[in-house]
């Protein structure tokens, strides 16, 4: 059972923000795949006075395609993301990543925004969207704003969203020819498992040169994070054996993993090296845009 709370079902983002701002003890509910679990865990101390359901706000469930960007509403479910034709065609790493998350039933409920705002250090979409240079839009009673995705996360389970604020969308630039997108993830079971360590890569190759490199680590730090020193190294030196090896070492040093019931910190750190090497070698080897 969950502790009792009131229920609101706004149909616009503005109404949702207003309800949240008016009651600081209210909480937003998207897919529920995290919140509904937390609510039955008394040790978390989550006892909201009210839940503001975001499930009937059309603006949040839209995926808009422009020439410059793909804008994904925070309420887009993982299933909708997987099924969207532009996502499948241009960012196959996104459906690939989403298929690691939960199960078909969970993916029908879980949302992109929920995964980001839950801000688990091991969230799968966080490193991938970071590597895709995502920007997010925040709806706020103080005025809507936009910021780089990396600025959204404050720490494990924490975002910078204040009272009355909601994540409205996440946008990624349109991807053109020459981009290679990959997600490397280490887990134990084939399904229903949380990443022990993960690496997301988005590289633009120009012949044998690395024209752009974005690499993000997941599950091995308080938040998902890009590794700019690795990115610079690979742009400068390309994807040869030596630079790949050096990149793996730098990535390991940049990780700040913890030990928990799933893995020790040491193992996580070592696996960062394995996954980085694996991802870079795959990109160096060939034309597959994602696994």
């Amino acid at each position: 059972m969950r502790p009792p709370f009131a229920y609101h079902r706004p149909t616009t983002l503005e109404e949702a923000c207003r309800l949240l701002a008016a009651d600081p003890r209210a909480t937003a509910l998207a897919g529920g795949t995290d919140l509904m679990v937390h609510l039955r865990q008394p040790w978390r101390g989550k006892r909201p006075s009210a839940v503001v359901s975001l499930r009937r706000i059309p603006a949040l469930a839209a995926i808009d395609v422009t020439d410059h960007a793909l804008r994904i509403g925070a309420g887009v479910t993982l299933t909708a993301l997987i099924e969207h034709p532009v996502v499948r065609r241009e960012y196959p790493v996104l459906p690939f990543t989403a298929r690691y998350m939960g199960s078909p039933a969970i993916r029908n409920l879980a949302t992109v925004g929920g995964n980001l705002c839950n801000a688990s250090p091991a969230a799968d979409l966080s490193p991938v969207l970071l590597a895709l240079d995502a920007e997010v839009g925040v709806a706020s009673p103080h005025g809507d704003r936009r910021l780089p995705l990396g600025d959204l996360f404050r720490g494990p389970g924490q975002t910078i969203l204040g009272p009355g604020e909601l994540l409205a969308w996440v946008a990624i630039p349109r991807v053109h020819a020459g981009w290679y997108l990959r997600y490397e993830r280490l887990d134990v079971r084939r399904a229903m498992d949380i990443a022990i360590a993960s690496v997301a890569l988005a590289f633009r190759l120009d012949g044998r040169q690395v024209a752009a490199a974005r690499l993000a680590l997941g599950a091995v730090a308080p938040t998902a994070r890009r590794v700019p020193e690795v990115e610079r190294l690979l742009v400068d030196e390309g994807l040869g054996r030596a630079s790949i090896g050096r990149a793996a070492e730098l990535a390991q040093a940049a990780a700040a993993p913890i030990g928990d019931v799933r893995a020790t910190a040491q193992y996580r750190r070592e696996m960062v090296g394995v996954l980085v090497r694996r991802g870079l070698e795959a990109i160096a080897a060939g034309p597959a845009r994602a696994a």
Partner: protein
Amino acid sequence: MADRQPLVLGVNGRTVRREVSGERTLLEFLRDDLRLTGTNLACDSGDCGACTVLVDGRPYTACLVLALDAEGQEVTTVEGLAARWQSQSGASPPALHPVQQGFLDEGGAQCGFCTAGMIVAAVGLLEEDPDPTEAEVRAGLEGNLCRCTGYVKIIQAVLAAAERMRVARRATS
């Protein structure tokens, strides 16, 4: 308990009107308010799939859904599958859904506690993809845990059902 609010939704083809409190889950509503106990509570955290129901044809883990969030939607539980198939295929009662029949024919249920959720998840899968490979069936059921069967006869049952459903669809089209 918090104040109750009105809820109207479809359950197994009938319109249901009740009053529920905000924190009531769809699973609690189905089992306790409507006495549809076929769908089981096994973990209450979305981790096992035993509570899988169809909502507007899509599988959801009902323990994670607030009842009030299902307002206006059509929920199908294991108890409604036979009628669902009968209306889709023209088969007459008491014909079971081919997935249910497959479980009978292949021995897909032992203790049966996961069975309702498993069958509903399989129905959801086959309505989406009528011709899955064995690997696709496994992936479609990856969120449904079973402790008794090792999934072997479950997979066999779903593949047999898929064939039966394809044949029936060809016959009616």
